[in-house]
Each structure stands twice: as C-alpha cells, then as structure tokens.
C-alpha cells in the first residue's frame, strides 16, 4: 500500500487478502470523512466487489481510495484499475443478472445503484477502470 498523501491510498490488489485490506482502508477513510454507518458499509462493500473482480478476472490491479471535494461537498473517490482481459460487453455487464458462467456476475449494477457517481471504461484486451464517488450527506 502506498500513501500518496494524507487522504489518498493506493493498494495493489493481487490476492483475496488484498481485497479485505482494501475494503478496510476504504471503510476507515469513510469513517474519517464523516459518513454514517450505513454508507460506510456500502463503500466498503463496493470496494470489496471491485477488488474481487480484479483478482478474479485480471489477477492483479490496483485500487486508489481518496478524499474528494467539490463545491461544498466532501466525498470518497475510488478508482479500480487493472490491465486484464477487459470486458467485452459493458452494457451486458451493467445489467442485473449478468453472469460469466463460473461466477454469478461482477456486482457492477448493484455497486452503481449505491453510489452517487459511477463510471466504467473497458475494451477487450485493455483492462478495466471503474471509478465511483460517494458524497457525505
């Protein structure tokens, strides 16, 4: 884990122990930023899903968790990046019930529902970058 500045941490993710570490880091930042308990749990769970996707599909990647400010709001920004095989059909991946066969889906539609801003970039062979923001209420 690299600490880039006081409020940004970057985690290499290559094992499932890394998945747990990343989400615990996310939760602790969320707590510090003043998110309520339910939102803390949502952020940690969302990070868990993204980190797991990296481990399962790309073998390795990184998750960057940072504080973000815009206008008068404070929030958490999470960017999950990998250089794996990428997603063929993003639209399908973002539909509830999508499955790649050996697992029950990427958890992306659910994640999108619980955050305030969400975006995903991918192309076959070009890895995946998922970015989300959740604002403190």
């Amino acid at each position, binding site marked *: 884990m690299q600490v880039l500045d006081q409020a940004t941490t970057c985690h290499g993710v290559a094992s499932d122990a890394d998945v747990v570490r990343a989400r615990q880091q996310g939760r602790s930042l969320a707590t510090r930023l003043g998110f*309520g*308990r*339910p939102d803390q749990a949502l952020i940690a769970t969302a990070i868990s899903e993204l980190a797991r996707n990296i481990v399962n599909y790309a073998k390795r990647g990184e998750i960057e968790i940072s504080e973000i400010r815009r206008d008068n709001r404070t929030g958490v920004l999470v960017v999950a990046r990998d250089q794996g095989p990428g997603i063929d059909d993003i639209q399908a991946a973002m539909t509830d019930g999508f499955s790649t066969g050996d697992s029950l889906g990427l958890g992306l539609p659910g994640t999108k529902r619980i955050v305030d801003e969400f975006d995903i970039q991918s192309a076959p062979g070009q890895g995946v970058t998922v970015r989300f923001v959740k604002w403190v*209420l």
Partner: protein
Amino acid sequence: MEQTTSSSIDDLGSQDQSIMARLAWCAIEKADLERVRELAPFAEDIADMVIERFYEHVLSFDHAAAMFANEGIIERVKAGQRRYFLELTSGRCDEQYVQNRVRIGEIHERSGIGPDLYIGAYDYYLHQLGRLLLERQSDNPRHAFELYLSLQKMAHFDMALALETYVNARERTIEAQQREISELPTPVLQLKEGLLLIPVVGTLDSYRARALTIELLDAIKSLRAKVLVLDITGVSAVDSAVANHLLQTMTAARLMGAHSIVTGISVSVAQALVKIGVGGDVLNTFGDLQRGIEQAEKLLAGTI
C-alpha cells in the same frame, strides 16, 4: 421585519404596476385622492376622540380585551392607530403607503388578531367619522357624502392589502408547521416484548426514509424485536419510491430476524406493494391498526 415586508410586496406582484392596477380596480382616481386630502384637517381634529370611543367599544368585549393586557400596550396601540388612520386621509398612495398597510397585515397575523377584529375596527372608525362629518357639514350633505365615498374607497384599498398579506402570512405559517411535523423523528414504540409499532408520518423522501430504516434496524437490535407493525396511515403520498423504501426496510428487517406487518394502506396501495414484491400475507389492508396489531401478536406467538 424588513425582509418579510419586501417578500410580501413581491407576493403582491411588481411594485408600481401592481399599485396602479389596484388603484384602477378600486376605481380610485385623482379626484378621490383630492377629496380625502380635504378631509385631513377634520380627521386630525376628531382622531383622538374616535380612537378613545373605539377602545371603549373594544374593551367591552372579553376576547378583544384579552389582547390588551396592560396600559402600556393600549397607549402604544392607540398611538399607532392614530398614525394609521391619519395616513388614510393623506391622499398619498405610493410604495411607502402600501408597505405600511402590508406590514399591518403581517403584524396582525403574528399577534393573532384575526380579520374580524381588523375589519370591525376599521368599520367602527369609518362610521364614527361618517356621522361626525355629516354633523359638521350639515349645510352640504351632498358634498359630505362625496367625501365619504372617496374615503371609503381608500379604506377598502387598505383593507384588501392588509387582508391579502394576512392570508399569505397565514399560509406561510401553516407551511412551516407542516414542514416541522414532517421532519419530526418517527417514534419506535415497543408494544410488548418483541413487538414494535412504528407510526410513520409525513412525507417519505429518500433521506428521511433511509434515516427511518436505519433507526428501525437499530431498534430491532437493541430491543430484540421479532415483529414490526409499520403503520403508514400518516404517510402523505405512497408512490413507487415510497413503496420501494418500505420493501427495502422490510427485507433488511427480515435479515435481522424480524417480520413486518404493514397497516394503514388502501387496497390500491396494497396492490401496488404486492406488485413490487411485498408478500401479500404481511399486508393488512383494512387500514385498521387494531387488526394489524392482532395479526402481529399472532405472528409473535408463533415465533416464541
């Protein structure tokens, strides 16, 4: 005070145009303004006497007398009233004049002085003045009548302003009260061990619904509840968003081992809930809290 006055003016539309429009509506012309000005010295003369008589009249009524608890208040009000009535015959009808009239409406609303008292007061003054005018101008009753008619137009112009602002201020007060009610935290009542009653009141926007859910789930944990009765009789609008919040709450409660019963819903709302996946067996559609609680107690008995 300044702020409320100008927002009232805004309520009445843009300034000059609205004043011109009102004057036209009340058929007030330059001639009317001249006539009331003619009355000014006479009004000055009789003002104190008429106001004294008016307060004797007022203090003879219990509910009005109650408003004037002590001498200090009475003297201040009388002075204010003297100014107000003399302005009536100033023949002015500008923004300042209008603002003063508007302010009166707001003061009355705040002090709980209803339109009946206000109109009664105005009327009393007018008829006193009318009678005295006739006596003073007994040689020219026709002219006295013309003067009086113009005065009456001005009086009604005033009253319309004051009453409109009174009504607007009332509405704002009511809205503020409604907002307060809808922001009250929802009580979570323990009817008996393991059984909670949650009477949900007001509008259920996302923010409030989320806060309510978390409060409820915390209560399930701390009070070890097994059955919840969610009474939504007091929820103002049950649309699909509210229905979804309800469903989410019930599902989360179930994960914590608590069953839910929803009461206080119409048949159509019940149908909408069933459509989005709320189990029909937990919906008490009689809108009857009593039966909902009975059903809840049965459930509870089944679980212990």
